[in-house]
């Protein structure tokens, strides 16, 4: 029997990132099937272009087109790819210095095994057929074999030479904006899976809930009863251990009426989110109030838990569907004033 309860949580969002002018220029180039680097104040061509010059700190605005062929300057093998990486089967990550650039770019290299790559090997970009203006427009690098597919060695070398020369008409695009609208943003979906574990005290609380009981813990130092229980009394840091079973009746100390819908919300607004101070507890916890019009809920209202049918119970506070008014007279303000 595990000591703690756990459940999966996925934290996922499609992040919308605005790129600013420098990365936008780089990504626009990728969309157009061209790699654009930035020339720094020291005369180095860096891919991707740094947003700000490493020496002068000024925004980089000297853009240089480089070739889509280059040399591997380092690589490492990925034997067990994780979700989101460029391939689902083993591949290599590589630093590739493209012809015309002075600094390498990080990307994937599609080779069948570590034996098929060495530092210094010539590679070329495999472009994605449909490009949107993202680093993944480059699907990966692949070995550049000179005689393959109409890319004879001589024209590769010529392209490399012209990319490297000081004032080539072809490679200098500093003042030329791309014709389709420039890329200004990218969408990066980020999804991370976690296994969330509750602490042993919280686990006890949730396990008790699965048996229809509300169990808190008392701090040995100050005597306060915490529900849900914490690993340490927040007032003095003492670990709490003494279990205290509490009734499922209590008082609403304060509350709000949630009207606003939001992403990830699970209860449909309008709903009353209230702090319920169970009889015998010294802290209140948030729960839902139903079976009464929202505008009639008031501070001090006496409530009782309404449990879901037993066959729907799990190890969760959601076994209590909501709290409903008992009809008793409201608790005197003085009895819960210190809990506000």
């Amino acid at each position, binding site marked *: 029997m*595990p*000591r*703690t309860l*756990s459940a999966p*949580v996925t*934290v996922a969002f499609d992040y919308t*990132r605005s790129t600013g002018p420098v*990365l936008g220029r780089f*990504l626009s180039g990728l969309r157009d099937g061209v790699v654009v680097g930035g020339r720094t104040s020291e005369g*180095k061509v*860096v*891919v991707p272009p*740094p947003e700000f010059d*490493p020496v002068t700190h000024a925004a980089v605005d000297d853009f240089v087109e480089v070739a889509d062929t280059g040399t591997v*300057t*380092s*690589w*490492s*093998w990925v*034997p067990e790819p*994780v*979700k*989101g*990486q*460029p391939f689902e089967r083993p591949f290599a*990550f*590589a*630093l590739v210095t493209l012809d015309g650039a002075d*600094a*390498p*770019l*990080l*990307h994937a290299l599609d080779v069948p095994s*570590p034996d098929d790559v060495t*530092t210094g090997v010539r590679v070329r970009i495999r472009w994605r057929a449909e490009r949107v203006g*993202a*680093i*993944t427009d480059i699907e990966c690098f692949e070995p550049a074999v000179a005689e393959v597919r109409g890319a004879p060695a001589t024209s590769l070398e010529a392209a490399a030479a012209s990319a490297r020369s000081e004032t080539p008409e072809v490679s200098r695009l500093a003042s030329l904006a791309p014709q389709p609208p420039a890329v200004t943003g*990218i969408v*990066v979906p980020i999804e*991370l*899976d*976690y*296994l*969330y*574990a*509750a*602490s*042993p005290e*919280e686990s006890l609380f949730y396990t008790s809930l699965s048996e229809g009981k509300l169990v808190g813990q008392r701090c040995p130092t100050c005597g306060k009863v915490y529900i849900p229980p*914490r*690993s*340490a*009394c*927040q*007032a*003095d*840091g*003492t*670990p709490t251990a003494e279990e205290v079973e509490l009734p499922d009746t209590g008082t609403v100390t304060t509350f709000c009426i949630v009207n606003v819908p939001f992403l990830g919300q699970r209860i449909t607004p309008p709903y009353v989110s209230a702090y319920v101070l169970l009889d015998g507890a010294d802290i209140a916890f948030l729960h839902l109030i139903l079976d009464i019009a929202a505008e009639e809920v008031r501070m001090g209202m006496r409530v009782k838990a309404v449990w879901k049918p037993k066959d729907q119970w799990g190890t969760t506070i959601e076994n209590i569907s909501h709290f409903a008014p008992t009809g008793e007279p409201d608790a005197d303000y003085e009895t819960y004033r210190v809990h506000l």
Partner: protein
Amino acid sequence: MRDVAVVGFAQRQMAQFDGSPTCVELLVPLFADCYEQTGWTRRDIGFWCSGSSDYLAGRSFSFVQAVDAIGVIPPVNESHVEMDLAWAMYEAWIKIQTGEADTALVYAFGKSSAGVLRRTLALQLEPYTMTPLWPDTVSLAGLQARAGIDAGLWDERAMAEVANRSLTDAEKNEYAVRQGGSSVEELLSRPMYADPLRKHDCAPVTDGAAALVIAAEGRAREVCERPAWIRSLSHFVDPMSLGTRDLKRSPSAQRAGAASDLDGVEVAELHAPFSHQELILCSELGLADDVRINPSGGALASNPMFSAGGIRIGEAARQIWSGSADRVLGHATSGPALQQNLVCVMGSEG
């Protein structure tokens, strides 16, 4: 500058912690250890600072609940950095230098096993052109390892020597999650994992927490017979880009070393989550061959995220407390391929 010493240290590590990612449950006994070592209670602590990362826990404000472990009635002077324990200690050291506090307890925690660490750490990269490829820390470290191999600065044998020594020393460390040296030949006979790295060249995924107590002058002398006096505390950062950095080097580590007086350092606890990184650090810090490296086993034996750097400082301090050494160094790193580095030199004289 005020004289400040490390006077307390506690740690807990495990391959997989089954409790809450807030790690309060781990912190409570650590604080108890610190109080026992110093004879203090929470009311003697003038400043608290923690180190952790929301992304490790998968929740915003994950450090907030950890404050429960302190017992914050009355309220406390407290701060938090989204960095390793070593930098939380730095902030506390600064606070003591201002005179606002004389004692501080810093702590850090991390439940790496809550997520898939290799994926989570891909978010620690440049978000536009790196993260979308989800490069993992092992691959990035591999790129660095290969750069040194290609340049003839080290080879797989040198890496295996680091791993073997670390795993052997870890046998004496009750906190290490990976132990057991064998021989360089045996390690080299094990299969390649993420070429050029073998599994033992990479730190194990570890959950854990740690705490350090630091105090100024007289307060330190009150509670510790041989305080580990902080002689220097420096840190620097390099650019992240793997393209523009010379991966065979760590300039920020070199700067941190240069800002410290490393003469006479006998023991160095270096935070090197990959075996080749220890070789880079020894070179950047200019450590002589007779300096004892990582008697604890180092990060290759146990690497709880966000406390591993601070643990190096604690382990180094222990060498002073026990009388084993008079001058020691604790190092911490952050970011891919030794991007950010902190060096703490401690000495025995008051």
